[in-house]
């Protein structure tokens, strides 16, 4: 990796002041499970690393009647060890349990999960976020795209969002609290991710000098939630498709639903169609299947990832059935 300056601030204000106005100048170091590998592979080469692990305000899990707050530095292991999260926010707990590496669970943070970079193998091999060769030819459409997007792949970005938490957070209508030089703001989880149009843009709605500070999830009282990941292996493996659902029921009838797909698109897909297919229905194999079919009705396969459409459909169906218990 290239040489860099290392800063270890103890307050949010110091941290954001150390970040530049341009992407790539500085990078935020939390668990480092993604960033350090990116630096070793020269995919990112910041001049400065801002270590935020010494900022106490970014730590801790708090649960109140109004909801759950996860500090950006909360590790996946802390979430897994929290019985209240497991009970009240199963979609979050199940998403985290899909990360089956103890090392990643111990080091990886909630904020880092949201800000990690795509796993697209062209990006990781140095062909840029939009995966183009020296002549500017797009590599994904004619290349090996077995793990790429089946939604939102019309533009240049064809990678899939790698976040484990994102689908659950969007379904639970969480807000991402971020801090910059001018103070804090809250971004709805479904607005946090963006599909970049150039290699110099990022996949999230942060400014270069902003950091994620908190994840705020409203009370899930009366909400049944679940996350289902389709993963090939039990050992650490990226999901091929993920679905998170949050349901409110009136007796046995679905009053409202929020269904989000992960690992299928440059940004998580909030499927209104799947939710609508479920509202007013009783949950059973058939209605869950119909919601799955509705979720993927507009999916569009690339040359060799058609199978992911089926997997996304199954993920939605199984997440719904899992949530309904």
């Amino acid at each position, binding site marked *: 990796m290239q040489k860099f300056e290392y800063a270890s601030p103890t307050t949010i204000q110091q941290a954001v002041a150390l970040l530049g106005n341009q992407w790539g100048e500085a990078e935020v170091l939390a668990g480092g499970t993604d960033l350090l590998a990116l630096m070793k592979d020269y995919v990112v080469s910041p001049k400065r690393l801002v270590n935020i692990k010494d900022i106490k305000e970014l730590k801790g899990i708090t649960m109140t009647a109004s909801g759950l707050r996860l500090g950006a530095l909360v590790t996946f292991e802390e979430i897994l060890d929290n019985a209240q999260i497991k009970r009240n926010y199963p979609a979050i707990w199940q998403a985290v349990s899909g990360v089956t590496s103890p090392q990643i669970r111990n080091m990886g943070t909630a904020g880092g999960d949201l800000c990690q970079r795509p796993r697209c*193998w062209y990006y*990781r091999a140095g062909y840029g976020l939009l995966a183009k060769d020296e002549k500017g030819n797009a590599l994904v459409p004619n*290349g090996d795209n077995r793990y790429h997007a089946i939604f939102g792949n019309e533009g240049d970005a064809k990678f899939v969002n790698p976040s484990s938490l994102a689908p659950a957070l969007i379904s639970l209508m969480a807000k991402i609290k971020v801090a910059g030089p001018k103070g804090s703001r809250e971004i709805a989880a479904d607005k946090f991710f963006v599909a970049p149009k150039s290699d110099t843009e990022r996949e999230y709605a942060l400014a270069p000098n902003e950091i994620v500070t908190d994840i705020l999830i409203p009370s899930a009282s009366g909400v049944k939630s679940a996350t289902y990941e389709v993963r090939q292996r*039990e050992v650490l*493996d990226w999901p091929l498709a993920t679905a998170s659902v949050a349901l409110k029921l009136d007796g046995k009838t679905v009053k409202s639903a929020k269904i989000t797909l992960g690992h299928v698109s440059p940004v998580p897909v909030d499927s209104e169609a799947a939710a609508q297919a479920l509202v007013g229905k009783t949950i059973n194999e058939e209605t869950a299947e119909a919601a799955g079919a509705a979720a993927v009705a507009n999916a569009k396969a690339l040359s060799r990832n058609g199978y992911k459409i*089926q997997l996304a459909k199954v993920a939605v169906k199984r997440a719904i059935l899992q949530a309904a218990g």
Partner: protein
Amino acid sequence: MAEYKWPEAEKRKYIGKRISRVDGPLKVSGKAKYAYDINRPGMLHGKILHSPYANAKIVSIDTSAAEKMPGVRVVKLVQGPGTTVQWAGDEIAIAVAADEQTATDAIRAIKVEYERLPHVVNDEKLEAVPAANKRTTQEFVQGEPDKAFAEADVTVEGYYGNAIITHCCLESHGQVVEWTDANNVLIHPSTQAVSSISNDLAKALEIPAGNVELKMDFIGGGFGSKFQIDRWGTECGKVSKMAEGKPIKIMLERDAELTIAGSRPSIYAKVKVGAKKDGTLVAWQSEGWGTGGVAGMGAPPLPYMLRTASGIPNIKANFSSVSTNTAPSRAWRAPIHPQVAVITMGALEDLAAALKMDPIEFLKKNINLFAPRAEIYSQELDKAMELSNWKANWRPRGAGAPGSTKTVKRGLGVSMHTWGGGGHASNCDVTIHPDGSVDLKSGTQDLGVGTITVLNIVVAETMGLPMEAVKIFIGSNRYPASGSSGGSTTIGGISGSSRRGAVDALNQLFAKVAPTLGVKPEELEAVDGKIRVIASPSKSMTWKEACAKLGSQPITVRGVNRAGDRELSSSGVGGVQIADVSVDTETGIVKMNNFYAVQDCGLVMDLKTAESQVFGAMIMGVTYSLYEERIMDNNTGRVLNPNMEFYKLAGAMDIGNMKVHMMTGKGYDERGPVGLGEPPTNSPGAAISNAVANAIGVRVPTVPLTPDKVLAALAGKKGGQSNAKI
């Protein structure tokens, strides 16, 4: 007088018993040192610049910026302008510096101008490969295949194949090399060939072979990829010389390891097989192809095990070699066997299904075609059926074994395999010291197969001593030469040399002490730490007392096993494996439930390490059957997954339950030890692929059996498509 032949079962104290690996504690505690762990005083680090292109002519190279960097000691070209590199990852230049990062910065500062040429990196779609990259390497005919197919009652056609996988050694390739003076070199490599690669290094460095000393205590995996000194090894010696002989460490980075340091050839084939109504196999036809890189590949033996005079009577087997711009393949744990097993045993299972026969019944019906091991396979099939409770669990194809649900289908599949594994040439020196201590020195290596443990067992068994009374020294080319560890030849080879050396040394000791005991040397035996008279066991002396008779001079005897020697070991084994899987038909994900291996390796030297070796092979087998694949990119010509993230290996929770049964006793023990490294790696692909076909009712043509392929096969089944046409 002690004899060479192996002791009878009732007399064996260690041979065939369940003995823990003697170097286990060193390995689990991290005390075992590998090449990667070697850090010599004043050591420098070398990094390799690899070609980013799969086919390109080097136009120019500018190393000036790298050379000027502070801390950079050497910048050396490996391939100069005018050279054409034929695969991505090929070595272009090496930079040496005091630390790894500076060496890395230096290679990144080297400017290379390439003239890019068209590349071919994938071969499964044969029709997409240019004619210039294809050549016929085999047109085999036996009997009258056309006539036999015309007369067959049932024929099936299918497409089967294997993606390319890599060796993926946990410890990457590399070494530390230094010039200890102007004429002498010391190398710490990671190698499967302790007694031979030093000679290759000496040749490259133009010094006498004896001037290279090689030391390697442990190796972190080889699987057939570490027989050569390799260009990074010879270049390491050259740059060390350029750096005043300083020790230089060059270990491949993980991406280079997965790109250039070894791969297993692909093999694909369209197959037709025919049988009589009663299941008698009568005809085989295959059109195969595959690649081992730029040089293409030879002609694999299809059908596996059955292309003999006593095998399938009518065979037509053609093969096309495909040349691709990918790094050359290397021997991969049972070269070619796992691939041809997938093709052959897959086609036979499909034929059995078409005949509505239990595949084990089908194999037994044709067991004589598997001569000369028909009897062994029969016994092993019975044992495997018993272990897997086959009769209770197996169901006809697509019916779903017990435990199947609407979406998750369980299935069982079987495969058989063979391998040679005769002992290699091996030498060792066995020394009995006057103080009673015993040691053995041999220029062999322990790839994890248990070489050290088996040497220890043989000497202790022969001399009637406890295991810990014997010290084993291996891993140096200054010890008597022993063969490289490949082709399952090590245990056969080192067992023979150590047995002979130990017997001869013991007989010399008997000669020394016989007068004291008042008998002839041939009337003595060594048992339980004593030398005693066979006819009158109370007449004895302790081992220590006996050795004291040596005076000041130890006994050192050379034990020899010649290649092809079949007095103490033999060649040729059979094995049977049964896989029990569950397939999620909605996601295409395959999970292992149970996996059973029944294996023959002649005389088992150590039951525990033998079983371990079979477990290792089965785990490797699950991995290549379900996950592993070197993914090449047509656009860039590069490997897309040269990392442990997308080059997928099985984890502990992915392998299911495994059971190993080693065949022993009459018919096995008298053949002496036969190598075991390769054989159990041959069947997993076929057994697991057959289990999946049994579960879901349709063949998934190629391994790895990934969700996309399983779903495609299921979709094809619904559409009524056939697997392939020949």
